[in-house]
């Protein structure tokens, strides 16, 4: 049973930011498919929710020229919009696999980022596009990379009076882009491992490789070391295998030994070998 709380519905960005500054004990409601679950479990007890999904500056838009996504686009929109499908296929696929139709119709990309869940499905695809976030408060505006924005499980550098106001993605021309997500059942499940990749090859040589891994370490990450190693290496099995071992070493370093490694690491290895 939900405890009682107040819900404010600002129509303008400035109004929303003002509420976040002035009201005590607030949380941003950007879909609420995680937030309301926490509130119902009493693990989070805000007095006031600020619902930003009606803010007119945000809308549900994607600007092709600038590669800018509105933070309040839903997973359903991201999975269906032809321009997102075309430019960011891994993001589109990742969003299509989240939860159920009801959840996808409500949950937003901005919410998925801000919640900072290690299993957030939109994050690995966003990472391979070098996503950058515009973050605003009444005090000002800053621009950060998604990669450094996520700090720990359910913790980001977003402070309580700030909002993610836009998400900028690099388009990847000439790349092979993919996503593999692992879960216990075919739908309505939390990912147990997700891997997004973008690979550009020329004449048997890796021109650029981007690999992002979620649901495996406390924060989804880009495998920078392995990416650098592969760059300009020939696309043979040997280099790939070495890169995969580097990634596994990084994971072990990040998490220490975990019982789930018994299945996660072998499966990750298989997925990467197949993808690269």
């Amino acid at each position, binding site marked *: *049973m939900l405890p009682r709380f107040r819900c404010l519905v600002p129509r303008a960005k400035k109004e929303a930011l003002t509420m976040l500054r002035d009201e005590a004990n607030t949380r941003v409601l950007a879909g609420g498919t995680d937030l309301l*679950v926490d509130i119902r479990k009493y693990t989070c007890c805000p007095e006031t929710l600020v619902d930003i999904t009606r803010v007119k500056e945000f809308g549900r838009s994607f600007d092709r020229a600038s590669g800018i996504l509105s933070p309040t686009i839903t997973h359903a929109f991201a999975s269906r919009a032809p321009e997102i499908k075309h430019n960011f296929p891994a993001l589109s696929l990742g969003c299509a696999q989240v939860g*159920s139709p009801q959840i996808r119709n409500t949950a937003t990309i901005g919410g998925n980022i801000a919640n900072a869940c290690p299993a957030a499905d939109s994050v690995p695809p966003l990472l391979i596009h070098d996503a950058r976030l515009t973050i605003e408060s009444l005090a000002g505006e800053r621009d950060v990379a998604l990669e450094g924005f996520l700090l720990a499980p359910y913790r980001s550098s977003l402070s309580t009076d700030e909002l993610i106001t836009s998400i900028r993605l690099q388009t990847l021309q000439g790349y092979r882009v993919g996503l*593999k997500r*692992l*879960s*216990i*059942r*075919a*739908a*309505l*499940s*939390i990912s*147990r491992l997700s891997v997004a990749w973008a690979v550009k090859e020329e004449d048997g040589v890796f021109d650029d490789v981007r690999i992002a891994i979620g649901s495996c370490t406390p924060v989804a990450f880009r495998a920078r070391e392995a990416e650098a190693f592969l760059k300009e290496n020939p696309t043979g099995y040997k280099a790939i295998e070495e890169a995969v071992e580097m990634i596994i070493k990084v994971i072990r370093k990040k998490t220490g030994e975990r019982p*789930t490694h*018994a*299945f996660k690491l*072998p*499966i990750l290895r*298989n*997925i990467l070998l*197949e993808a690269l």
Partner: protein
Amino acid sequence: MFVGENLERVDALEKVMGKGMFAGDLRMEGMLFAVVLRSDRFHARIISIDADDALSTEGVARIITHSDIPGANGYGVLKKDQPYLAEGYVRFFGEPLAVIIAESERIAREAALKIRIIYEDMEPLNDPFMAAVSTVTIHKGGNLLCRKSVFKGDTKKAAADSSVIIERTYSTRRVDHVFLECEAGLAFPDTSGRITVISSTQNIHYKQKEVSRLLSLPEERIRIIQAPTGGGFGGKLDVTVEGYAALAAYLTGRPVMVRYTREESMLSNTKRHPLYMNYRTGAAKDGRLTFLEAKIIGDTGAYASYGAVVALRAAVHATGPYQVPNVEVESSMYFTNNPVCGAMRGFGIPQTAFAHESQMDLLAEALCIDPLEIRKINALRKGSETATGQVLNHSVGFYDALKCIEPAWKERKKTGNNGFGLGCMFYGIGNTGVPNPSACHLTLMPEGKIGFHLGACDIGQGSDTVLTQILLETLGLEKNCVLLLKGDSDTTRDAGSSSASRQTYITGKAVFEAGSKLRSYLEEKGINKGRSLKDICSAASGEGGPIFDGFFDPPTTPLDPVTGQGIPYATYAFAAHMTEVEVDAATCVCRVKKVHAAHDVGRAINPDAVRGQIFGGVAMGIGFALMEEFIPSRSKSLYSYYIPTSMDMPSVETYLVEDEEPTGPYGAKGVGEPALIPQGASIMNAIRDATGIRGFELPCNFERLCVLSENNDCNYSGSKFKG
């Protein structure tokens, strides 16, 4: 003609219009809500319960602990050992401690958080192996709940003469029923002091007896009404909310609603027993089974519930639907500090089917015989003798079921990552070796209709429809001549529980009996000679309103306590499933693609209803084999406890075998549990076919499958249990 027709469900309109009032929807003037506070310890002594703060909360009407119970603080279908409210000790995570009654559900829940309990923790027993040897005892009398055995022939001698012997250990995990509708009930006192409970239940007359004991009131002062029930699967056989609602209504004198959230349902309800099964099976060179030695150990949790029934059923069905001349099965249940395990669709047989069907495939492999062939060779058939020495003289359609799936089996094609597996079962209809009668009665109503008084609980499986079809067929009258008056202990007789796949067969026969008597009466009164039903009915009220009784108790004999020999069931259902799976080589994720399911149901009273049961059974079997694992204190909600969704559902081809059962109504047996039983086993055999890996532990999710394939140890048996 009604039997064999796909009559529309009698409750269809009410359900699709959203008009059915489920228990949780009910409201009454002055109604209070009650919430149950439960333990967050596995095993502890209760030092104190301090409810002062909670009690002084505005809107809280009363807080009840065990000392407020007027009658007996214990319930249980076989043994009254489970307290409604803990008395001195808690024995599992989720044991009820107190009931908070308040003006609103919100107030009650918030007050519950203010109750302070001081415990002294005791050593918890986490598994049956620990329970078997530990000096810690959960109940006086030790940790062994029961040991059941079946002995026949001489297994030692048969082992010496066998050409191949396979020995493996299988294990399964705790499973939640996850019925769609969580437990809910409303209780209220009337002006005469009678207590009425309206609840979501599988058995009204049993609940009447339990509530009468709890309140120390005679049974006739308790009335139980079944609300439309959204699934049960065995989880609404034990007392759930009824006790708390009745107690609260009795003590406050006001109507009280108790309805569980999904979290409370999962925390409180009984589970499917985890079983550890060591199987040693022998066969001759030609594939004939020579012997079975099985040792089954079960974790029954903190209280008895249906543990002894599961132990016995597992022992009696341990061979599977095969002729095995020499049998030695021992099946034991131990108390642990885990959630209470009780009745769940199949009563232990989905677990043993996983073991015996894996053994059949291993034997086939060792003997280079086709898996379908070895099953045909050993199939129980007319004249076969079961492990308990029962000779099956009629309605043994197992061989025919195998023949139904044979074409699909022969045409199967490996195309890459796919694989095919078989799973078979037999299942005794009704309770095991004990009387389990059902009764119903018919009356003639002055307005010219027949009153059909039915105590059987339709829990979604469709018994109301099927039993109505049987009655209409027997009477030879139209649908609108019958008025169903059901699920009320005041107006119906005890039909027994909706469990053990027994309502179509047992209550169906009672309905047939009553219907036959009424038909003779109507004929005598001239219904075939132009006299209207209405006329007969209004004349009948002058005769004092005759009642037409129906009664049936299937002919069984008690089992010998040492050898387990006897006739535990009057009839058995049989089934064979063939499943195709696809296993992703990179990720070990298994998806079920196609199922062929053949069932001998005796006679399909309503073929669509039978198919519905099979579809549901397939879904549940997918959960059992691939996903479901209830971990006490960690599986808190459907957020982490996974059941299949429609996206996991394969296409299902059904084949209905109708080898009529002479004692059943129009030849019918049952299908509710059989639909599920062979599914998990067939998936496991299909995974082996697809990957070369055989799992010995359920659920076989991609995590376990990946570890197995990494270890590349096909004989991995994943258990500390040996012999």
